């Protein structure tokens, strides 16, 4: 089974499952709190995401093969803002329930998680939390226990309300929209994929931070390699490394683990020679960084 499960385009059983109950949704909302429990740099929140929606998936895909298919594609790279994740959950679950094409679910998931990540960071990490901290910190400093308690109640309370509300709202939203779309399922899959792929291209830019710090020795005017790369096009290294990974996986049939090892080696060997940007002293010192 295993190998073709990953490439499946459709579920084998295409009859829509029974709608998920309020209780199911609530359970998954609670589980959403562990979105980042297995966070890592390859897939980020993927495993936590899958674990979060598993109860739903198990209800929907009674057939074991379909469950495998669904679990597999839900192990794709995933990253969004934790407070807003239930919005993505609801909409994906509604698609799963209707047995939409795998490509469609994939694309909708990608298209939703990206923008929500950015919005959430701006809204919560950079606005909401500092405000809560600002209000309560002085209480704590003045020795009052109310400070930390208020801090916890507000911060945790707001996110929970949000999580529950987003889950039920987006599940409903997805369920309503789906009817119209299945009539033109094939066309919808294609356009959803377009959106997804477009957003992946964007993620290479927004998530890609890899840069080099090499100064090519050149008499009195050493040349900043990153600067030169940027004149070709910015984010060239992230682009190149993504292409490398893609090529290894697609053409050379590398497993992801093997690619990870390759990158680990590239990372550390690079650091030995001071290739990658960062605040460290390379082992081998073959160029000097000009005083700023």
């Amino acid at each position: 089974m295993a190998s073709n499960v990953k490439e499946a385009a459709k579920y084998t059983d295409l009859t829509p499952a029974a709608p998920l109950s309020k209780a199911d949704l609530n359970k998954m909302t609670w589980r959403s709190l562990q979105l980042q429990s297995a966070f890592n740099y390859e897939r980020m929140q993927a495993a936590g995401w899958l674990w979060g929606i598993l109860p739903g998936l198990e209800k929907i895909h009674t057939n074991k093969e379909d469950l495998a298919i669904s679990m597999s594609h839900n192990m794709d790279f995933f990253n969004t803002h934790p407070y807003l994740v239930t919005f993505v959950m609801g909409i994906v679950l509604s698609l799963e329930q209707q047995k939409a094409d795998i490509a469609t679910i994939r694309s909708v998931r990608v298209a939703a998680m990206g923008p929500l990540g950015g919005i959430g960071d701006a809204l919560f990490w950079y606005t909401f939390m500092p405000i809560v901290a600002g209000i309560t910190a002085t209480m704590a400093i003045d020795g009052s226990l109310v400070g930390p308690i208020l801090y916890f109640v507000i911060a945790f309370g707001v996110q929970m309300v949000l999580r529950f509300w987003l889950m039920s709202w987006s599940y409903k939203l997805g369920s309503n929209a789906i009817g119209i779309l299945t009539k033109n399922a094939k066309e919808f899959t294609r356009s959803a994929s377009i959106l997804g792929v477009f957003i992946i291209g964007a993620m290479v830019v927004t998530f890609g931070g890899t840069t080099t710090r090499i100064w090519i020795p050149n008499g009195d005017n050493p040349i900043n390699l990153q600067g030169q790369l940027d004149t070709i096009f910015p984010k060239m290294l992230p682009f190149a490394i993504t292409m490398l990974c893609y090529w290894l996986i697609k053409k050379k049939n590398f497993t992801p683990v093997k690619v990870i090892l390759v990158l680990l080696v590239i990372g550390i060997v690079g650091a030995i020679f001071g290739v990658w940007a960062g605040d460290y002293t390379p082992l081998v010192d073959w160029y000097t960084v000009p005083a700023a």
Partner: protein
Amino acid sequence: MDVIQVILLAVVTFIFAIDQFSLTETLYRPMVACPIIGLCLGDLNTGLVVGGTYELMMVGNMPVGGAQPPNAVLGAVVAMVFAVKSGMGVEAALGSSIIFAVFGQYVVTTVFTIMSGLMSKADKAAEEANPAGITQVTVVSMGLLGALFAVLAILAYTGGTQAAEMLNEVQESASWIMGGLSAAGGMMRFVGFAILMKIMLSSDLWGFFLAGFAMANIISNIEVLANSTMILMAFIGFAIALFDFQVNVNIKNRVGSGTGGTSDGI
């Protein structure tokens, strides 16, 4: 050395270490964590003061897109140990704890880099339709992170000052290892992208990938728009997708059901 204090400290640190990414993502903040640690060490009041002060220092220091700021959990533990056990002043304790926060940042980066390896386990569980396997992966991950931090907390408690010196030294002499791991960590996500692309990118969608890359490059290089890149991209991408949908539906409807398919392209 007070065994009960050490155990309590290890337990709460275990929880905070997990909480900084999962669970409440609130408990671990200095504001809440420090008073709790204070309780463990028998000095709630110092906990409140250190917590409030530290929280204000860390305002805006949040993990965005998985990038790690100086680690608040280890910072808080050490600051509290210094303030309560070594009797340092609040400011001095916070100052001395910075190196630990930086070290904690490296630890998390390393863990997140290495834990990428667990994904193949999760993939296998998925392919076998085995929910328990996924649960296991998440539990193991959380346990590992918690345990590691608990150990570090104990070390900090027992040998805080020496540890500080050692860390400073390590940071100087072997910084390239950390530098390498950070660099590698930053590259891991490209594996995730590549896996996604492998499946989504049928050859006829390459154009949209490139266009997405180019447009995001444009937007994110306009200073005031940098933070809005994703949402504006979603607007534009939605327009393109919708247009494509309409055109293809139109083609289909005009002909009934045709002979060729959408993806007959290049």
